[in-house]
């Protein structure tokens, strides 16, 4: 199976979030996703990169975030890796629960789950990696859509 891979090593700054988002939009477009899916993928990568920089690396200038894309005929796989303390995804509160609806934060991973087909977390000790997969669908086939 042929795969195209590209990887970016980014500083822990807000500017890197925009770089990752833009790279995701470009890779998604090259992978033949429709414009709506390109937007969803770009937002998922943006949210994952925000989490890596803000919650993972905590803007530490000595730590980097790596964003890797692998594109095949079947799917686009994006991995975002930080060098922070790690994340236990089972502890994340449900942002749709009535008691959380008016909280200011806590929606990023929920949006990633909504926009991508699969997500996986890996504790790197130290660091965290989130892998997000979006499958390329044949025209006319419906799939998970999200926003």
């Amino acid at each position, binding site marked *: 199976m042929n795969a195209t891979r590209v990887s970016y090593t980014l500083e822990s700054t807000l500017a890197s979030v925009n770089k990752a988002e833009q790279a995701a939009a470009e890779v998604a477009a090259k992978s033949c996703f429709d414009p709506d899916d390109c937007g969803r993928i770009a937002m998922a990568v*943006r949210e994952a990169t925000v989490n890596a920089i803000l919650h993972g690396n905590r803007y530490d200038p000595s730590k980097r975030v790596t964003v890797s894309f692998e594109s095949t005929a079947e799917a686009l796989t994006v991995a975002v890796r930080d060098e922070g303390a790690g994340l236990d995804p089972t502890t994340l509160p449900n942002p749709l629960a009535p008691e959380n609806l*008016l909280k200011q934060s806590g929606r990023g991973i929920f949006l990633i789950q909504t926009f991508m087909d699969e997500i996986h977390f890996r504790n790197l000790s130290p660091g965290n990696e989130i892998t997000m997969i979006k499958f390329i669908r044949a025209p006319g086939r419906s799939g998970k859509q999200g926003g």
Partner: protein
Amino acid sequence: MTMKASSRQVDGVTIVDLSGRITLGEGSVVLRDTVKDLSTQGNKKILLNLGDVTYIDSSGIGELVSAFTSVRNAGGDLKLLNLTKKVHDLLQITKLYTVFDILDDEATAVGSFNR
């Protein structure tokens, strides 16, 4: 594109015209500071016009929620006007469509504050 905010008064309602991206960083700060200043000045009826908001991320959504709760806690009301499809879909996905009063006509929105 950076976010811009400008406010105007219509029949006692403060309409804030927002444009650009409401995202982590500058966009969220502009929204936060704008609503905070309006509240401090005693404006209690605030209508956020999102018609020219091209993009919003989870931080921007959080900022909208924070603006809504702070205005409500100060005895006022904050409503949303002219959502683009993308923002509309995001608020539906996050169930915030049920929290905000969302309108698509300015005159109707202004009138709704004064009923």
